[in-house]
């Protein structure tokens, strides 16, 4: 005997989620069908629709938001003279968790990577250049990843901004905080030496 069609369809939908195999999907579907309260199921269905229907990319910074503009862009207590450029929304969330950074953001939605078919024109860059014309920005922090692609993207944007007179900085990389030198591998040590700075 097969499951009723409604259950089979639910199994099929659940198995489209990352990390969920057919066995897990079956278990989850049966849980929803037999154990879950109708009210919870309704809320679940609503949230699924809401994230798809009500969420959008913030037209200013590219952050994921349900309001236009996003909560960061709307917050008047934040420092508008500084923008941190990140690759993905999750990088923005990671920076926010730190609770120390009070500047603005710009989400590129990726890094330039020709082998993945992403050229310079395919990242969320035009809106950043537009912002710089209108807003009073003094510093851009390039907070893209330290991969080759993150590095070329940072260097590329820095080059485009060369003539604007805006200060462009790059996040530091090197030794983990609290780590002894003897535990660092040679490449990390080298990066730490290359990125050294003067005591002020």
């Amino acid at each position, binding site marked *: 005997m097969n499951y009723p069609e409604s259950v089979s369809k639910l199994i099929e939908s659940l198995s489209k989620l990352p990390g969920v195999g057919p066995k897990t999907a079956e278990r989850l579907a049966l849980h929803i069908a037999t154990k879950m309260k109708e009210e919870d199921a309704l809320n679940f269905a609503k949230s699924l629709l809401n994230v798809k229907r009500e969420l959008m990319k913030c037209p200013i910074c590219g952050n994921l938001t349900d309001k236009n503009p996003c909560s960061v862009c709307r917050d008047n207590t934040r420092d508008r003279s500084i923008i941190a450029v990140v690759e993905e929304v999750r990088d923005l969330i990671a920076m926010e968790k730190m609770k120390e950074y009070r500047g603005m953001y710009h989400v590129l939605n990726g890094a330039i990577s020709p*082998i993945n078919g992403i050229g310079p024109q395919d990242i969320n860059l035009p809106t950043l250049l537009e912002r710089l014309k209108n807003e009073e920005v003094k510093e851009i922090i390039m907070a893209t990843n330290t991969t*080759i692609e993150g590095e070329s993207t940072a*260097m590329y944007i820095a080059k485009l901004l060369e003539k604007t007179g805006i200060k462009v900085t790059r996040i530091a990389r090197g030794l983990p905080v609290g780590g002894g030198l003897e535990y660092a*591998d040679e490449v990390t040590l*080298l990066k730490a030496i290359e990125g050294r700075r003067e005591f002020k």
Partner: protein
Amino acid sequence: MDIKSLSLLNFRNYSHLDIKFSNKLNIFIGNNAQGKTTLLESIYLLAISKSHKTSKDKDLIKFNESYSKVCTVLKKSDLELKLEIIISNQGKKVSINNVEKKKISEYIGTFNVVMFAPEDLDIVKRDPINRRKFLDIEIGQTSSIYIHNLNQYNKILKQRNEYLKSTQINKTIDFPYLDILTEQLAIYAEKILNKRIEFIKKLNVYANKIHEHISNYHEKLYLEYISSFSRDLSKLNLNQIIEVYKKNYNTDLLKGSTQMGIHRDDFRLFVNDIDVSIFGSQGQQRTTALAIKLSLIDFIKDETNFYPIVLLDDVLSELDDLRQSQLLDCIQEKVQTFVTTTNISGIKKEIIDKSDIFFIENGNIINKKEGGNFDKQ
């Protein structure tokens, strides 16, 4: 530096093997296809993390098995180190003293090897790719930063080539982006270039001394690095490399790939000022190959403070008496050596007497003869 034991599980034709070593000189004797070379291959793998025979790790897993494991205990001055490599469908795991190393660059270099194999002649005789592979493996053995730089270079090269190709389809070129890819490529090219030039410089000193000796002071060997950027190596700094690339934008864009760089470089070998790859006799080419391989023993000792393990795959009996003696001089009593051969008749008695001899048949050790031990003398 000595290998104390070696154990193999599901490695090529070996189901399970444990060997202990107590001698400096060790000979594996057996007919062809019995698994002698596989023993050297496993030692090479433990040092370099790659086989010298295949680029596909899965080839190393015994037929019908799901994983393969090689393990060695080695003595490095007062330290005992256990190295282990596991190869399965999920990939390769390397560990030192049961601690897994996530980055290969943290593993390579724990101990070094110099492998002598019949293919060494390719370094002298064949395409530049053989010489570049030689440079990258031997420098990489002693410098994890070189391996890192090389990996970064190759990643950028791939992106740059892909971008060059994409401009042919899209018919637009973003020059600021091409500049950035070029700058990034040049940064790593310069580091790799400097390291290679320094390596060739050091090798020149060691190799020439050895070559002079083998040739009875009739011949002088000289190695010259050939850069695709410029003939004049002294003029190659970062800015100049970037300039050379920029002058070649048109060619690169037309071809859809990067025409110049350390991936196109080479080195030439001169004996008495004659290019031995093209004009050398068979004997001169053999001597040259032997000299550069032997010079690695001194190079590695100088770079790391430890002698490498020497692996001689089917080459010892091919060498004449003079070259065998020369080899023995270089190895002296300090370098642990593993030899494979089908027949001991071509090997000097002096070497045989001092060696532990293992008889290999069909993936097993069927007999062992202990030789005089240097340590005990």
